[in-house]
């Protein structure tokens, strides 16, 4: 596959907003944990604050835009600004958004309107904002982007599936650039499901490299990248040289033992067992999920970390140092880095691998 340059980055998550906040969190190895009320008890969450969006849009424009689309808009505005792209033609910028679950809060707001007052009082505003591509619509309207727009819902593989399409668009020259983002939000129903599936009500510290322990903390947020085909100019961050998605039942992701792997493990023993089985002990690994939590956006944040590392040509120390539980090689000191990969396994054997480099 031909390479795609990462030339702009926008992000909001539990660590804060923008690449500066993520970089600070990476250097300090921690992010502030919030606690939200969930059915009478406290639920730990790496929560995204979208108030910086008011830098880009006034309150009136934001009036009917929900949290999900606000996170997406904030990521999109930042990525375009970060690219420092003078005089872009918005009609030649494609938009790809991936989301595991879409605008859940608004979906349930719509159900509230029906359950509270009957079918006849269903909320048209909530309905039209609950469709998965509502965030893409808001972005295209605000950024006047009239090119192709694609929203994907592939759970944890949404990012890598989106990258496949972004690459197709760039290589077919449908567009000059692709603004690609992933976004997912927390809501109380998600919190309930989380507790039913993971039973980690007292979790405070994620140890995702301990594959036998469930320590996941929920996260939410958005990550956006401005991608362009490989050109004469150097990328602002680095280039994505290949993308792989598949299932371990039929294939394996490519790994190179000299290139560090950023693991998308999230502190779940279910998917942890897959990492345990398939990772070579001599493979240098790092994991940063304690900074942004577990959600379908996790690999997006991993990709942002990889981009930042390539820009400074130095990989950040792993936030989970591997303790006494990880038998392999963990990157625990800053390490020179020109090539690396992001790898995520699902508990059904699905994998998503993104390979990056900077010449």
């Amino acid at each position, binding site marked *: 596959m031909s390479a795609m340059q990462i030339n702009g980055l926008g992000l909001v998550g539990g660590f804060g907003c923008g690449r500066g906040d993520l970089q600070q969190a990476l250097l300090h190895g921690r992010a502030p944990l919030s606690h939200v009320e969930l059915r009478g008890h406290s639920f730990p969450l790496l929560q995204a604050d979208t108030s910086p969006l008011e830098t880009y849009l006034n309150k009136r424009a934001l009036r009917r835009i929900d949290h999900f689309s606000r996170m997406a808009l904030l990521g999109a505005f930042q990525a375009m600004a970060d690219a420092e792209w003078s005089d872009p033609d918005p009609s030649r910028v494609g938009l790809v958004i991936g989301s595991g679950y879409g605008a859940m809060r608004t979906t349930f707001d719509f159900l509230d309107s029906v359950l509270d007052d009957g079918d*006849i009082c269903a909320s*048209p505003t909530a*309905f039209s904002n609950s469709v998965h591509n509502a965030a893409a619509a808001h972005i295209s*309207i605000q950024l006047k982007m009239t090119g192709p727009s694609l*929203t994907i819902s592939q759970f944890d593989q949404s990012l890598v599936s989106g990258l496949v399409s972004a690459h197709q668009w760039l290589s077919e020259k449908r567009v000059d650039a692709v603004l690609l983002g992933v976004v997912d939000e927390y809501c109380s129903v998600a919190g309930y499901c989380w507790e039913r599936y993971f039973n980690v009500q007292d979790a405070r510290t994620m140890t995702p490299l301990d594959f036998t322990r469930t320590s996941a903390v929920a996260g939410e947020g958005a990550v956006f990248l401005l991608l362009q085909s490989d050109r004469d100019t150097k990328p602002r961050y680095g280039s994505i040289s290949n993308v792989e998605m598949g299932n371990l039942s039929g294939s394996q992701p490519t790994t190179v033992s000299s290139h560090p792997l950023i693991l998308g493990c999230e502190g779940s023993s279910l998917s942890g067992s897959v990492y345990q089985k398939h990772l070579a002990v001599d493979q240098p690994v790092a994991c940063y999920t304690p900074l942004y939590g577990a959600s379908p956006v996790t690999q997006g944040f991993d990709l942002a970390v990889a981009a930042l590392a390539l820009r400074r040509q130095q990989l950040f120390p792993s936030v989970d140092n591997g303790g006494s539980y990880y038998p392999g090689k963990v990157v625990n000191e800053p390490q020179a880095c020109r090539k690396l990969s992001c790898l995520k396994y699902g508990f059904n054997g699905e994998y998503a691998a993104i390979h990056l480099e900077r010449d």
Partner: protein
Amino acid sequence: MSRAVAITGAGCLCAAGMSLDSSFDSMIRGERKPQPPRSFYSDHTEAYPVFELYDSLPATDVDGELLRTTLLAISATMEAIADAGFIGNELAQLRVGVCIGTTVGSAMNNEEFYSEFRKGADPDMAPIDRYLRSNPAAAIARHYQLDGPCQTVVNACSSGTDAIGIGAAWIRSGYCDIVLAGGADELCRVTYNGFASLMIYDALPVKPFDVHRKGLNLGEGAGIMVLESDKLLAKRKKTPRGYVLGYGSATDAYHLTAPHPDGRGLRRAISEALQTAAVSPEQMAFVNAHGTGTPDNDKVESLVIADLFPGVPFVSTKGYTGHTLGAAGAIEATLTLMCLERQKLPENIGFKTADPQLLIQPVSRVTEIDGTIALSESLAFGGNNSAVVIALERLP
């Protein structure tokens, strides 16, 4: 290098029929059966008609309980794969991608579960388990033990058309040997209430492009195409049914639910589809319109068709299928292929009286066509527009 991508199999289930052939035949006979919903209740003062499937679905041998949307998708895939001539686990030996459009199939909106949750109860997780197992692209891949790329497209009502265009690109770039591409959606109380709340639901059977049109009727179904690489085609010595010649998509960047009044995005999507197909508007045997029967959609669409395709016959098949949302574009693409094969169009059922505000009228009777190329188009919430050019032959 030709950009044409071979279609070697097609499958379709909708209210018009439980297979592509039977759907087409019933349309040619002018049959349609919109009824009040049977699969769910509603407390609206009037029961809006829907196009529901009453027969049991062919997909029964599936792993675990799945959403109806996913069962519809697998059922249409079964027909398409059989049509393409694959048997047993042949597909599992190939690089097969799955690209499926949907709306309901991606929404975590189980009312019963949420109602219990709101009351403070601890609802059983079965509906969530089912939802998590039912991602249409992933479920099809799992069902056939496929290992290629998976993509569930959620571009609202253009999802099915987009999935076919995306799938064709995966073949063209050499990324896959085969792509199972299409769309699926089930009838659902949530979307029924949603469209009613927007006041774009006709209480009578839908009347696309008619002066008295009041809105859409929902439907359910699935349409799937087997797209195949030239290399595999040569190896299998298979004659394709047709080709995806071109695809285009563009965004209005105008409004969350209303189309741009001049059809800005639709024009661009059509222009890109024609350009990538290397065909001109005059070469179209017909246009399969989105034709939802809503005042805004039909107005904008007829304006664009009149401008870009003067004299070209057009039809909306939603009068037979209802609006199947994420499946619509895929169902209509398979029907477009059938119309080309049989060289005839069904009448645009529901259309009786021309709207003086619209410059053109759809075909009002079964119409013979002359040509081997047609265009199928979709408009969607979010301002998405997409179009796909289908042909019986590869162009020289």
